């Protein structure tokens, strides 16, 4: 059965089925689509066959009057109705199961905004942008809301999707069956970078996940208590460390590294530049301004850009913020100009770096 499933999946270009919901969905999918292909091919071929078999043999040839019998009408209505209702009953049963999260599910809060996913584990748990860590073989419930327009949380490998609405919570759940990394896509059109609103689910084996969440809690507490002295260790230069954080935290989704304007100001030659703010003031980009902007991004918005950046307060330990600043400082060309950043253009420059 699994071998046949895998074959069908490959033929139909379906991704791997990595959640408990995916398996019954795929089975019904194979049934429905096979019947569909058979029925449509037979219809087309039958018409084609009749073209030859009953082709006109002489002009104005007369034809018999063919009328349906009661039995024919019964078959014509009964057979499709039987299949359609069969599919409906099975599909609706699976669907009701899918829309009823188990009581013992782990809750994760999801906040969608243009164009990123934010996850938080509630209470004193960690939070993250773009990457959701979950345990394998345990149900996880997502409570989702949006801060701006409608988005939709879609994980092809799990066969799940749920619209995320502003002003209310929607929920969905899944139980991942295999550790690995799975892509999250936004499937409800939400503007310019809709097609780049991606995230990732990292499914970890249960015990590893438990360990991870404890470490995250401890790390978070440490950051708050001591300024993060025992933050995660990283072997390499502080600049490389800053680059890793920029990738992990999703900074580079909005800030380009090559001088092209994007959603936020580019980081190339940013350090030392004179920027004009929204309120007309000018500011020199130094360590203080960069750090301020991570903690309170709405405080000093560079003219021409929108206040879309979320705060990183509580998500960056002091050494991490410092490493980011060092990384930004390292992005320099010979011809540093001190003119203000070019205004944001909401046009693509190059595909956002993929991990």
């Amino acid at each position: 059965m699994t071998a046949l499933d895998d074959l069908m999946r490959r033929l139909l270009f379906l991704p791997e089925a990595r959640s408990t919901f995916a398996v019954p969905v795929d089975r019904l999918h194979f049934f429905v689509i096979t019947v569909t292909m058979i029925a449509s091919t037979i219809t087309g071929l039958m018409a084609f066959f009749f073209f030859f078999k009953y082709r006109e043999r002489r002009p104005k040839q007369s034809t018999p009057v063919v009328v349906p019998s009661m039995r024919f009408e019964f078959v014509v209505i009964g057979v499709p109705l039987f299949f359609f209702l069969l599919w409906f009953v099975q599909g609706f049963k699976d669907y009701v199961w899918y829309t009823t999260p188990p009581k013992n599910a782990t809750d994760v809060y999801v906040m969608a905004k243009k164009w990123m996913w934010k996850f938080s584990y509630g209470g004193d748990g960690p939070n993250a942008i773009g990457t959701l860590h979950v345990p394998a073989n345990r149900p996880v419930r997502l409570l989702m809301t949006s801060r701006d327009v409608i988005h939709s949380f879609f994980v092809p490998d799990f066969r799940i999707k749920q619209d995320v609405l502003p002003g209310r919570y929607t929920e969905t759940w899944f139980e991942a069956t295999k550790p690995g990394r799975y892509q999250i896509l936004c499937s409800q059109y939400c503007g310019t970078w809709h097609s780049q609103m991606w995230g990732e689910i990292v499914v970890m084996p249960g015990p590893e996940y438990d360990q991870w969440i404890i470490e995250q809690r401890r790390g978070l507490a440490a950051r708050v208590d001591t300024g993060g002295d025992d933050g995660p260790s990283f072997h390499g230069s502080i600049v490389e460390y800053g680059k890793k954080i920029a990738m992990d935290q999703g900074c580079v989704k909005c800030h380009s590294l090559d001088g092209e304007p994007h959603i936020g100001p580019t980081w190339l030659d940013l350090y030392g530049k004179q920027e004009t703010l929204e309120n007309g003031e000018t500011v020199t980009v130094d360590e203080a301004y960069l750090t301020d902007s991570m903690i309170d991004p709405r405080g000093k918005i560079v003219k021409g850009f929108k206040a879309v950046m979320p705060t990183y307060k509580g998500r960056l330990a002091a050494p991490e913020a410092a490493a980011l600043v060092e990384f930004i400082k390292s992005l320099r060309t010979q011809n540093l100009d001190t003119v203000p950043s070019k205004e944001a253009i909401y046009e693509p420059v190059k595909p956002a770096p993929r991990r």
Partner: protein
Amino acid sequence: MSQSNQLHDDSPPVYPAVNYLNADRGVWSWLTTIDHKRIGIMYLVSVMIAFLLGGIFAMALRVELLTPGPTIMGANTYNRMFTLHGVVMIFLFMIPAIPGVFGNFLLPLMLGAKDVAFPKLNLLSLYLYWTGATIALCGMIMGGTDTGWTFYAPYSTSTPMTLFPVLLGIFILGFSSIVTGLNFIVTIHTLRAPGMGWMRLQLFVWAIYATSIIQVLATPVIGLTVLLVGIEKVGGFGLFDPTRGGDPVLFQHMFWFYSHPAVYIMVLPAMGVVSDAIAAFARKNVFGYKMIAYSSLGIAFVGFFAWGHHMFVSGQSSFNDGAFAVISMLVGVFTAIKVFNWVATLYRGAIAVKTPLIYICGFLFFIVFGGMTGIAVATVSLDVHWHDTYFVIAHFHFIMVGAVIMAFLIALHYWFPKMFGRMYHEGWGMVAASLIVLGFNATFIPQFLLGNAGMPRRYYMYPERYQALNVASTAGASLLAFGFIIILIYLIYALVRGKVAGDNPWNSRGYEWMTTSPPPKHNFDHPVIIDRDSHDYQEPGEEVEHVVI
């Protein structure tokens, strides 16, 4: 009366010296005409321009999707482009195409009438169409509308792009649609020739009748919806935007309450065309005439209660999801009835394999595949994965392009001699038809697979794993475009240099063929009395063989 199309078998066909095309001359005579045939021709030219525009936008999208990253345009341009493609194809082409062109041209002929019931209202509907189309197009191009044709709130109410002109355009287009529908309903009720009972109507007329009912009942809702979006956008009232106390899902309910029945505004006339054309080319009574006629009404009725199947992942209750799913299945049953009857009509026919037959063969495959994938996406658990992916795109293009455009082409070829008195080139017709059926499959079957693989719709950039199928789809689209270009060329040639067709080149028994081709200004030179059924292929006095299956 019914004998007139049997005359002059051996003499070469004659082009009628005076007909509706040359009865009056000059541009002004066209612009002020109240002749339903001329209005139909002007609709034909207009919707073909819209189709050409929509097609160019589609090709631009396909070229952009050749690579995972940016190819020929920026993200915002792409978003505007798919909005233009959707709005132009749906509101400027699909909805007016068959009713506006063939409904206008043929309905009075098929009823044995001189014109529609309200000829001036008919002209008004065309001017409303032109006005709405111009405002919507200019508004979108200059204002950079980037919401998609669905205008989902609160994105639409919060986008900085201009939305008002396109909403106004759609509002006006809605009136054009309502006026046409109203006119047709009254015409069918009041202007049937003596002897033409309801059960003698051609199936195309039945289809147009069912369509008109939807146009009159559903279109006001889209008018109301766009008006509310406009009010929210301009006046800042919180109707759909939750930050101002509105409800974004309310918008979806209102939008789909029109836009789902609108699918049947597009598909029902297509089904009517196929019913008539199959009978003509198989020289046979339509099998199960009443079943086909009533199933049109059934689809029109049930279609009003299926809108929620567009919203399975919107957060509506599971009970609603289930109810909308079952109702959607009923639409499938009505459609299945029609398909069985069409195929059964071919059984023991005397089939003349001409260009429209190639399209009919394609149509039958497409409507079964497109229809049954519609059942598949209405099967709630399956829809969760497919919703808003290319699977849905492929499904509705199978219906919109596969069924409706095939039917438009069937109609165009079948009634071309009726409209212009000349024949297109059969050989080139076959070549183009084969290209289009092939190209269509090559374009949209990869899109089904893309949807399975999980590629969401409206994606400017996509993960690299989706590239191969996207390239395949674009290649298919080029084939499709090539087919359409061939058609355009040979039809324009046929218009000027085509062989004179004669009054009834297909030996069809449809009532519209009882007059000359092209018809005179007032349709019939003699009073029309109907003494037979519409798809009655028995010669008078001929022994009729009855077969029951």
